């Protein structure tokens, strides 16, 4: 079997203190290979915590994570990264500013590249150039430019390339277009769709835009208080409208989906 299985994930932060917070509460999720799942939920619902659990940024209290048949629950974060790509909201997080575009890509590619003495070499560079050309941002002619000189959108596009360059089994996108201006955000989202389709990636994407959550991918889950309260896919999802989604959430979670940062349209 391939894909991702989350079995009974549980995490309490600051356990045993008055600040104890139940961040993940019995999260079960079966992700099939090739699934593109959008993740919705208000602030503090546990979306990013779920991603961090998958990435191994902390130890779970209980539960198991199985990626492509391999139990990775106890694997260190950098070892999991061999098969998991991740992109965050902040474009600065995914790239090294004082290194060139080429060096950044070479570093990200290291895990799957053939052995070579120099990190930047001709053969890999040709490959990087072809990947950059597909972004259509003119970066293929600026491979010796320092990453820090690029705009936020360009850096996020480069980060997207870096997260997917080693053909991960799973791609996690944590509101990766939220910090960009609308036009750039749309461009980066288009690139994301293109790369996911081309590489047939299994993907989880956190978004706060309900409309695009329903439009993108093949499945949508909604989280609340560390639980998955709604999980729709297939024909049911195709017919689902945003008001219906809100209605379903109210029934399942027993409260309104707080719309402080949510975009309805």
């Amino acid at each position, binding site marked *: 079997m391939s894909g991702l299985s989350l079995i009974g994930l549980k995490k309490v932060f600051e356990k045993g203190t008055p600040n104890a917070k139940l961040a993940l509460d019995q999260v079960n999720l079966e992700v099939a290979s090739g699934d593109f799942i959008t993740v919705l939920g208000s602030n503090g619902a546990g979306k990013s915590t779920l991603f961090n659990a998958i990435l191994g940024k902390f130890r779970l209290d209980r539960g198991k994570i199985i990626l492509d048949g391999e139990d990775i629950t106890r694997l260190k974060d*950098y070892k999991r*990264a061999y098969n998991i790509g991740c992109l965050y909201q902040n474009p600065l997080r995914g*790239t090294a500013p004082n290194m060139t575009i080429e060096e950044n890509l070479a*570093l*990200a590619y290291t895990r799957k590249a053939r052995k070579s003495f*120099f990190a930047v070499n001709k053969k890999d560079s040709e490959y990087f150039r072809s990947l950059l050309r597909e972004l259509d941002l003119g970066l293929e002619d600026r491979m010796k430019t320092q990453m820090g000189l690029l705009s936020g959108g360009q850096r996020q596009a480069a980060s997207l390339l870096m997260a997917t360059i*080693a053909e991960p089994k799973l791609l996690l996108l944590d509101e990766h277009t939220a910090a960009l201006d609308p036009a750039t955000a749309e461009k980066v989202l288009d690139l994301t769709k293109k790369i996911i389709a081309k590489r047939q990636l299994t993907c989880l994407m956190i978004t706060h835009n309900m409309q695009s959550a329903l439009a993108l991918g093949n499945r949508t889950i909604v989280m609340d208080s560390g639980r998955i309260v709604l999980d729709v896919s297939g024909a049911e999802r195709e017919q689902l409208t945003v008001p219906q989604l809100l209605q379903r959430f109210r029934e399942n979670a027993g409260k309104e989906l707080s719309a402080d940062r949510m975009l309805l349209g």
Partner: protein
Amino acid sequence: MNILSLLISALSQGMIYAPMALGVYIAFRILNTPDLTIDGSFVAGMCVCAVVTIAGHPYLALLCGMAVGALAGLLTGLMQTQLRINPILSGILTMTGLYTINFMVLGGQSNLYLQRTAVNSAGAETQVASDTLYKTFRAFLVELTGNKRLDNNLSVLIITAVIVAVVAAVLAVFFHTRTGMAIRATGDNEEMVRSSSINADRSRIFGIMLSNALVAFSGALLCEQQRYADLNFGNGMLVVGLASVIIGQVFFGKRSVTLGIISAVVGSLIYRIILQAAYKIDMPSYAVKLLSAVIVVIALTLPLLKRLVTERRANREEETEA
């Protein structure tokens, strides 16, 4: 002394301290982490080198000095990454602990001269200077040129320059290999390194080891050149290294790692020339530390001053437009 021999003396000192400046460059600029182990590992390199040189192995002594520096770096690196102790404190802890170790290496005294006791033909005990890299090389040069009055500093300068050139070249190549690039990236964005499935802790530890090995190597070279080791020689060494790195940056900027390596070496040379000039105008030798600290403070303040000036100019232009 004429100007030329003063210059040669300054350059020879600059070359001896150049590996130290490279070590500081790796810690502060590449790994982006202040490391105070440096004060201790410099002396550790000196002490170990002294003991092994006196035992009759001047070349092995340099390598041993380097190795003990790497070991000190390993301890600091483990404290930083595995015990999660603050980087500055980790360095201070290693440095403090090293003082005891260094004292023990010197056999419970605060300094040690590179000489051993021998019995001369008359049956009396005399002190014989140990063979060192510099002594051997000078003898070689004297034989080669037939000039018995050869400037000692010149021979020091030549052999040290060769060594430093090799070290710098190896470093420049190393930082373009996969391992070297991972160290650079760890200093630039550690999270990105982890996301690329590279063990950032290992990169960091390796970088700190490399840095301190270079610093200790500098200490070992100095020990063989001045023919003694001194327990208190490392105080403020970090500031000297930082001053060299910053001076170098004024000339070469911060563009690439290769330029950074060259600039650290050149910075070390210029720093010694500045010191030599200061001695020439009768600055007492104890003023060195203050001078170094002032150079570092001024150099670190420059970017702020630059910004203030441009801001003020912009404001003034706005006012005149209004």
